[in-house]
């Protein structure tokens, strides 16, 4: 499991994407125009995750090491 906060920052893109999926499901359930919102929300989410990953390339992502 995570030993320190540094490992959390290294898996932050995955955490963000997971949160984005949950928010998207909520939008899909409760919004009548979700098909208009979700494409741009997805693009924004992917773009921010991509920029974060590019700015933190020196960190190796190690997921759930025993």
């Amino acid at each position, binding site marked *: 499991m995570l030993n320190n906060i540094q490992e959390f920052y290294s898996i932050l893109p*995955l955490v963000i994407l997971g949160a*984005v999926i949950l928010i*998207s*499901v909520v939008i899909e359930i409760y919004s009548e125009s979700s098909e208009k919102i*979700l*494409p741009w929300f997805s693009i924004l989410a992917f773009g921010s995750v991509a920029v974060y990953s590019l700015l933190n390339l020196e960190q190796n992502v190690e*997921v*759930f090491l025993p």
Partner: protein
Amino acid sequence: MVCLLSVNYIKKYGTYFGEYYIIIQSSVLGMMLIAGARDLIMIFLGLEIMSISFYVLAGFNRKRTSSNEASLKYFLLGAFATGFLVYGMALIYGKAGSTSIDVIAQKFSVLNTDVLFLVGILLFLIGFSFKIAAFPFHMWVPDVYQGSPTTVAGLFSTEGIAAAFSALIIILSAFFVSSGNTFFKPYLSVIAVFSMLFGSIVAIMQTDIKRMLAYSSIAHAGYMLIGLAAGNSDGIAGIIFYLAAYTFMNLAAFGIVSIIEGENEANLNIDSYAGLGSRSPVLAGLLALIMFALSGIPPFAGFFGKYYVFIAAIKADLTWLAIVGIISSVISIYFYLRIVVVMYFKSSDLQEKPVINFSEMFGVAISVVLVIALGLAPGSLINLITTFFKF
């Protein structure tokens, strides 16, 4: 990019649902889990999240029989390949005593004489050979790409293959360090040769542009396998560069096909591209540029992708593999440039101009700009790869 291309595309088939984007998000989560994994179980988890999302996306045009067929075919063959993968993981775990890639790599020099361990590795490679669309595990590719929505086919051919290659790079580069990198050369070299030649030769005979791009994906998987067969740091860097270049080239190609595609899968035959140069000069010009890039003509990114993997093969004493790659590239020029000839030198009675929307054009434009940029400055990406990815 796929989301940008899909905004107007999915309206054509009456599948204008928000779930489409949620499933794409799930597939990307799976891909990121694969790329960041250091454990076999995490690789499997990421692979299944990605694969199940893909099975659903393949059948998203649920009112079309071809889409349903593509989804079912992909699911059945994908599940079968996953069986190989999991059995291989079980054998590896049984012998190594751990699913951690680092532990397995440390014990590799001891275990590489054990038959069960080697069978496990082979089954693992077979499972992933299916995912990267390598010969002889490529049978699902043409039918799935042809039947799926075009933007989804673009996702499969780029990100799906990239995620599978990232898993192979993680596993094999760890083993290369410990084993001296000659162990997997025979298997990888053979499937690379057959993938390149089969993909290039059969693509020549295709009349449907999506099937042609599917067979070209098989050939490109073969080129990337050359880098894995080389088993050196140049090969791995070459594969990562190739994946980046190939992703943007193929996304642009499928994006342009999706723009030109009419309702009810119209305009997917290569002959329907006749006269596109006069009907829609911008689209025709972009598609011509992408076809040049895919065929490996300089100064576009496709040339440098092939250059780096071929150089890696030569440095690893696999010059014969590089020669086969060059021969396959020459063969592939025929079917890529055939599109250009049809667009500019064949006339058509069709006067209908494709309707181009901002989001689609923006997505295609970004891809084309990156293809040109990677071709003009390939060293920048290669330096980035070799600086941050330590093998």
